[in-house]
């Protein structure tokens, strides 16, 4: 291999700063997008299971639209096409005045995209519980909303912890797509370092390790949560 290794580059100015700031951007984009995705995904997922054709229809359209277009393309559409569809003033405001435009767009896009997948999990979780529990809730006089709040959701969120963990991991990995609209997150910084120094292997190794660290922490965290909320006496929630 005709390559001059220089691991020191990772610890030199300004490259170390770049990596750190990239890592922080990865974390902030991912977490902000996750909050959006989890909230909206839950709402949409619930809407897909309620007894109202309109709500179900809209939620279905949402899911089908957002999960059937590649994230990369959606990122582009949000950044360049969306403002053009607005009235001129609003469009200009989005383009010029929006605080931290790349960050905001990335969070919105990644959040909305992931929401469609979270919605599917939430729906699957609710459907896995079955009609019996819903009927039992209704039969003691709970309103449909209360049935969701006190009966269906607490159990279905527990059921879907493993797939939700996967989505949570995926959002960190997908956050790298934000570099296409100029968010300087980990992967983008690794590329920058490579462009400046031609020490690509070092830069990408650092990026890979950073991702593995984050995802390991997330997996651990979700395992902890799963253990904390485990229902005594139940072996497997999904089984029923």
């Amino acid at each position: 291999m005709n390559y001059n290794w220089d691991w020191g580059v990772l610890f030199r100015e300004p490259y170390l700063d770049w990596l750190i700031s990239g890592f922080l951007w990865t974390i902030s984009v991912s977490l902000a997008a996750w909050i959006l995705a989890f909230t909206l995904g839950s709402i949409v997922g619930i809407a897909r299971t309620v007894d109202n054709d309109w709500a179900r229809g809209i939620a279905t359209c949402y899911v089908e639209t957002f999960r059937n277009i590649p994230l990369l393309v959606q990122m582009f559409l949000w950044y360049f096409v969306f403002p053009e569809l607005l009235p001129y003033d609003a469009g200009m405001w989005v383009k010029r005045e929006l605080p931290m435009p790349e960050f905001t767009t990335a969070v919105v896009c990644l959040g909305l995209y992931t929401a469609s997948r979270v919605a599917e999990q939430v729906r699957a979780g609710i459907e896995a519980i079955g009609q019996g529990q819903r009927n039992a809730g209704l039969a003691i006089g709970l309103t449909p909303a209360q049935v969701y709040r006190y009966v269906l959701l607490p159990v279905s969120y527990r059921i879907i912890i493993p797939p939700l963990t996967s989505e949570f991991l995926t959002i960190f990995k997908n956050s790298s797509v934000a570099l296409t609209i100029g968010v300087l997150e980990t992967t983008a910084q690794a590329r920058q370092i490579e462009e400046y120094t031609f020490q690509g292997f070092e830069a990408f190794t650092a990026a890979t390790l950073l991702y593995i660290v984050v995802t390991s922490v997330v997996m651990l965290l979700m395992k902890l949560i799963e253990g904390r909320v485990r229902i005594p006496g139940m072996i497997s929630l999904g089984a029923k």
Partner: protein
Amino acid sequence: MFGDFDTGVIFDNLHFLVEGMQTTLVLTLIAIGGGLILGTLLALARLSRFRALSFCAGGYVNFFRSMPLILVIFWFYFLVPHVVGRPVGGFYSVLVAFVMFEAAYYCEIMRAGIQSVRKGQIYAGQALGLSYAQNMRYVVLPQAFRNMVPILMTQAIILFQDTSLVYVVGIKDFLVSADLVANRENRILEMFTTVALVYFVICLSGSLLVKRLQRKFAR
């Protein structure tokens, strides 16, 4: 902005885009096939009684699940030639990367599928005198597979969208081809809108098919 939407650029480069789509499809199909086979073996290993085997399989899965696919592709491009001992070209290294990466996901799906087959079914097969391999082959895996068809398809749709990451090693799938045209002709808006539509139509058909299958297997 949409007033001067230039559709000509799409037709001028149609054959190029079609070639890209072929690459996308070939990559997707091979990655699904290979990933499914390797993933199933991994799932069997993960569920195996032998601690060492299931531990290794678990490690494999967690490792690949923590890596962004794009970095996996990047690393494989440089590592595979070293392992094989000669340059293999982008396409084959990407195939290996996809198969190994997808295997981690398919392993988890098939594991869930195998676990969704009731213990009693395994007992029933054993009680008839089927060997472990026969029991897996004729009783458990067909059911596991059938139960998981919808999830497998969903994963396939994700994979179909993800193939564009092969641009890092210079392979031209559909999205990459479109991006190239966009760059050369400076018609980025036209190309990306087209791409969005094409993906939407194909993936939506895919997920509608999933629904049909789901209903069919729901019985």
